[in-house]
């Protein structure tokens, strides 16, 4: 099991790896995000590895608060959707979460 906190690892030891997310996959996703994305510096996927980790942790934490409000112990997909809807910063995900709900019901 990997050690948590690659960020704190950097601050203390100066080591930058291992990363929690695969850099090659991140690069693939970046390249697919638009025609304009041609060249990417070596540090970009590394930056996103960290940013995604922060994003996932924040959205998970917010989703878990919804779970607890419902007095449940299992975080489900509706909790994730609720957290997205309750957070202005995550407005860019609104279409995505509403698409998921409609595809489930159909």
């Amino acid at each position: 099991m990997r050690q948590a906190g690659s960020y704190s690892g950097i601050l203390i030891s100066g080591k930058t790896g291992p990363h929690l997310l695969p850099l090659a996959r991140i690069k693939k996703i970046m390249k697919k995000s638009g025609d304009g994305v041609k060249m990417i510096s070596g540090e970009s996927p590394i930056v996103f590895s960290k940013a995604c980790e922060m994003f996932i942790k924040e959205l998970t934490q917010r989703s878990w608060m919804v779970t607890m409000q419902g007095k449940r112990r299992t975080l489900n997909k509706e909790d994730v959707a609720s957290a997205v809807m309750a957070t202005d910063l995550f407005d860019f995900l609104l279409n995505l979460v509403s698409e998921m709900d409609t595809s489930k019901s159909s």
Partner: protein
Amino acid sequence: MVDEQNRTLPIANVGRIMKQILPPSAKLSLEAKQRMQECATEFISFVTSEASDKCHKENRRTMTGDDICRALSALGLDNYAGAIVRYLHKYREAERERIIASQNKATSSSRDEDIEESDQSGQPSHQADQTPTPLMNIFI
């Protein structure tokens, strides 16, 4: 199915990160992990598009870590931008030190060879030519 796996972040990694922040007794449904996988992937696309637009406007071809930081700020994700700027700074420092350390190692090993050769022939040998490694612009 395979296609989907290649266009999103791997669910195992996403699940691992989620578990790091949840209490040990918390349970995580598979669908919740799948939703998070989709959301995190969209996050990358969204921020990348913003960074890419900026590069285009400034007639630059290569997206850098700084562009991603600026995009995070522009999209209202200032707290991420701040932390990422610090992370990037530390990463670049660590890279610089790694390169200097490997250059020093190469220099000292060739210096040892010099000493051996000058003992034998009385003439110092040439050091290996070292081309400087570009630090930040490592193009993929």
